């Protein structure tokens, strides 16, 4: 299985490649990708250098163009496709069918991967994208159980990429509008669940409070591990009880599921975290490279090493790691 790692900047790209990533994914410095934050991502100069670096070491570069253009912004997505083609990336990760159609027509040399934001949860949906846009790979949303994943992967006309590690998105990706209720901006069009300008952290006598768009979404007690200030991971009062009404701030970790994913024929494991630093990318890539190599050698006797698990636990968002939807027997 291929290891696909995040790069929010050039040092992270180099860290991923140096620690054994088979491919890195990155975005441009605007709302054409789903990690749209000030100072993050690549301008043309740094992208050129990054692509050269990755290619020289045998790693591929994917460009995330995975938000949904609105009428007034279409030219930015069009320009991004053209720039990606002239820079020589290996693939575009797209969610919007207009962007895919444009890329297919204007830059047929670029592979198209269906983004997790495309939210395809059936082999039939993947087949549709394959037949109409010639996608070469599909990244599945983190909502499928292992049983469901097996069924989709078995019938998919293209290789499947799944998320292996990182902060968890709990809603149906590409269709989540939650944060727009308090920020006025949707992650699908603006490229961020919690636009930084809408986020406020405040230390009070009751604890560390996080607010999104002025709305209190969590209050962490002293010493309690914190998470990203997204609405889905906030604590709310429901029927007189305060708790995580939607999902807890946890990180996905599928290390233990690797043999099963390998047996299903999953083509690639994706690591979340373009917003994280080069230190995170190094730490996580190193662990996953070792784990994937170990699993490839002998899947029947594969067991995650304690040091791998504790390294991943230490960089995780929130208090714990989870199998996410992969382990939902009822689904």
């Amino acid at each position: 299985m291929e290891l696909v790692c995040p790069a929010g900047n050039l040092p992270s790209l180099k860290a991923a490649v140096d620690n054994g990533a088979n491919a890195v994914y990155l975005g441009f410095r605007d709302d054409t990708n789903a990690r749209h934050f000030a100072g993050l991502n690549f301008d043309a100069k740094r992208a050129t250098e990054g692509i050269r670096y990755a290619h020289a070491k045998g790693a591929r570069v994917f460009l995330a163009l995975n938000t949904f253009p609105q009428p007034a912004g279409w030219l930015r997505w069009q320009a991004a496709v053209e720039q990606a083609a002239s820079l020589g990336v290996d693939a575009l990760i797209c969610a919007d069918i207009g962007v895919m159609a444009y890329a297919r027509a204007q830059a047929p040399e670029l592979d198209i991967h269906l983004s997790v934001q495309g939210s395809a949860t059936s082999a039939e949906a993947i087949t549709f994208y394959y037949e109409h846009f010639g996608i070469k790979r599909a990244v599945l949303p983190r909502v499928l159980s292992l049983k469901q994943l097996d069924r989709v992967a078995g019938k998919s006309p293209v290789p499947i990429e799944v998320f292996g590690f990182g902060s968890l998105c709990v809603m149906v990706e590409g269709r989540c509008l939650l944060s727009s209720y308090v920020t006025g901006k949707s992650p699908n069009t603006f490229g961020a669940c919690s636009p930084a300008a809408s986020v406020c952290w405040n230390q009070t006598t009751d604890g560390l409070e996080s607010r999104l768009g002025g709305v209190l979404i969590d209050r962490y007690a002293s010493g309690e591990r914190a998470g990203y200030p997204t609405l889905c991971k906030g604590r709310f009062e429901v029927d007189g009880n305060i708790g995580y009404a939607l999902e807890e701030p946890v990180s996905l970790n599928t290390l233990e599921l690797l043999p099963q994913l390998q047996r299903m024929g999953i083509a690639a494991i994706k690591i979340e975290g373009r917003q994280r630093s080069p230190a995170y990318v190094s730490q996580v890539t190193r662990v996953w490279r070792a784990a994937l190599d170990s699993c490839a050698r002998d899947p029947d006797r594969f067991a995650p090493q304690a040091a791998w698990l504790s390294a991943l636990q230490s960089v995780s968002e929130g208090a714990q790691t989870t199998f996410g939807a992969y382990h939902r027997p009822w689904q």
Partner: protein
Amino acid sequence: MFQIEPPGSRLLQGLSQHALASLLNRIFDTALSAGELDFLHDRRLCVVVADSGPSFCVSLRRNRLIVTPSTADWDLRITDHSYDFLLLAARREDADTLFFQRRLVSEGDTELGLHLKNFLDAQDVTTLPYARPMAGALTGLIRLLVRFVPSHHRLRT
């Protein structure tokens, strides 16, 4: 919370604000010329080293980084222990990790903090001025301070 006694703190206290400003301007010379630090223009970033006392503000004026004594009217305040600041400077720990673990405290303008974090992460430390002596000094200081840090906060190597 934990207390680290002497070594790093003395060094930080000894480094005058003027010297720190000179060092920062030299290190980020290329970024300053490219306007990459414009987001700090007339904004006050207050840095508080929790275990050793010194705190100071950094700002950008006339395209130069200036360091001043800390004031109450900061736009962004970052608080952590010297060991963690050294880990961040040495690229050995991730700021979000420290934040999740409630070690690094960021208050004020979140977007300014995020921009600062992303700016620093994007720097290729191997090509910055003083890269080699800085790396050596950071490694030495981290080694020196690690014995004063609780084991669960020590970086795994």
